[in-house]
């Protein structure tokens, strides 16, 4: 077992149990699989990712391997879990290559942090895989939303961790890159045996990438399903508060 959450309560108040967002999460993450967390806005998807990545104080137990996440040092967590957060405003400009290189922070053994040959190789590989080779000397302030997202993904990958956590990775991407990213993530996971935990608001992207699906509602996990055994229309309606299947069918109708 890679990650195990037992009765996790956590939120943004003064203590974890003060007005919690997650209200008793039990979850097991196995190695090499990809998990997609689905649910309506505000149900605690992102908070769950933050708790797993050790960014929030929690009640209950979250273990990474056999160690309690809250006991681990920042660097120890960062060598196991790399997280792609949602894009926030960035005021300072770096080139794409410089920004991706920051993902190698952990591995710098000289104290002035001059990147090694291996760092450079990994960074240029990650840049290439994400289709940013032509853009590597561009200032990130001049990137489009989609390019920025791919730059951040490249940086997350440059951390070379066994677990990757993605918060809405297909946000800001147009259809072409979304499709590319989906197939790229699938391929990459298959080759490398990484464990992937991702939050999606788009069910279709999730179905493309995930093996296992975790459905959340109001801070609790209401259902865990494998892909073959996906929720039916009624269950989805319960979670999203709308007839999801009908909506998707309506969209499809147009393309016939």
């Amino acid at each position, binding site marked *: 077992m890679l990650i195990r959450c037992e009765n996790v309560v956590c939120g943004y108040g003064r203590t974890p149990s003060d007005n919690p967002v997650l209200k008793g999460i039990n979850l097991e993450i196995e190695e090499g699989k990809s998990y997609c967390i689905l649910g309506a806005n505000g149900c605690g998807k992102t908070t769950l990712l933050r708790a797993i990545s050790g*960014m929030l104080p929690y009640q209950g137990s979250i273990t990474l391997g056999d160690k309690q996440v809250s006991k681990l040092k*920042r660097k120890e967590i960062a*060598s196991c879990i790399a997280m792609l*957060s949602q894009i926030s405003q960035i005021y*300072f400009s770096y080139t794409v290559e410089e920004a991706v290189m*920051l993902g190698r*922070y952990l591995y710098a053994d000289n104290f002035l942090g001059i990147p090694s040959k291996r760092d450079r190789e990994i960074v240029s590989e990650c840049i290439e895989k994400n289709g940013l080779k032509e853009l590597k000397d561009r200032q990130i302030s001049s990137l489009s939303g989609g390019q920025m997202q791919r730059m951040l993904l490249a940086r997350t990958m440059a951390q070379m961790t066994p677990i990757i956590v993605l918060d809405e990775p297909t946000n800001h991407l147009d259809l072409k890159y979304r499709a590319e990213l989906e197939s790229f993530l699938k391929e990459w996971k298959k080759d490398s045996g990484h464990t992937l935990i991702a939050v999606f608001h788009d069910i279709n992207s999730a179905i493309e990438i995930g093996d296992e699906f975790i459905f959340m509602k109001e801070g609790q996990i209401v259902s865990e399903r494998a892909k073959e055994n996906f929720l039916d229309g009624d269950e989805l309606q319960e979670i999203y508060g709308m007839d999801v299947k009908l909506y998707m069918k309506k969209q499809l109708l147009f393309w016939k």
Partner: protein
Amino acid sequence: MSKNKQIRRIFFIIVITVLSLALCICAGSVLLSAGEMAEIISYKLFGKQLSDAANVSNVSILWDIRMPRVFCAFFAGAALSLSGAVMQAVLQNPLASSYTMGVSAGASLGAAIVIITGAAGSIFGYFLLPAAGFGAGLLTVFLVIAFAAKIDRNMHNNTLILFGMVFSLFVNAMLTILSTMSSEHVQRLIMWQMGSFSGKRWVHVAALCVCTLIGGFLLIFFHRELDIMTFGEEPAMSIGVDIKRKKTMLLAIASFLTGAAVCFSGIIGFVDLTVPQIVRKIFGSKHSVVLPMSMLLGGVFMALADMVSRTIMAPREIPVGAVTAMIGVPVFVWIYFKGRD
């Protein structure tokens, strides 16, 4: 940006620094030539004989009055813009500075207490005034950080900025009350707050130089953390930066630098805000370059501003803070809009 271009630019800044310092030393109410300057410096440093042309009074003007003043301005500017660069990166806000964290308000209050109690008049007061400014400035920042950490476990930037501003306002209110209660000292207090480098001696230069170099030396070890922090707190944690600890350390070093500058020169605004911005426009945002270049450019900027303040309306001096703003604003606007892609 190619590496060669970067190196050329760094070299260019170094040349500018040396030339500007020479200019600042030569220019003043008594104008000296570069030759005279070189002669006097080599006389003082290496004991080389003075030629007949050199005036003995010029030796004292240059060595005892002007050079300490120029170097004081240089190191104060360097310290201020270093701390500005750090504050902006750590708080992820291009408008942040140590003054946002309450250093200036605290330092003013400390100085005011010393002036009003009359302790500044004694011989003891010669060092007491800067020490009180320094101590009170740092104490304010410490309180801001402590309260922010207490209220907000993760010490988010907005919490820090908010507490910095609230504390500044609170301390300023105390200062206002103090000064209305003893209006006879207001003049002196205002002069202190406006900032000046007049009457500085080599001992001041030494103190400032040591503080600035120590601060700069410590900061350079954090250059990657600073880079990472500009991307936000969550990404920084995910990359492996222990954000709360590093943030506290960096804020402490930056406040120390501002405190050192403020306590010897008074409150001079604008350098800490503008210079790092200009440096980032020229060199990009990597802090391994931004930090040393901010230091040089900030020093040069302050030395030049001080030169203008003492020469433009000589023999009267205008406050150097007014000069930094009046030169700085147009330069800033020009660079900002020119450098935009």
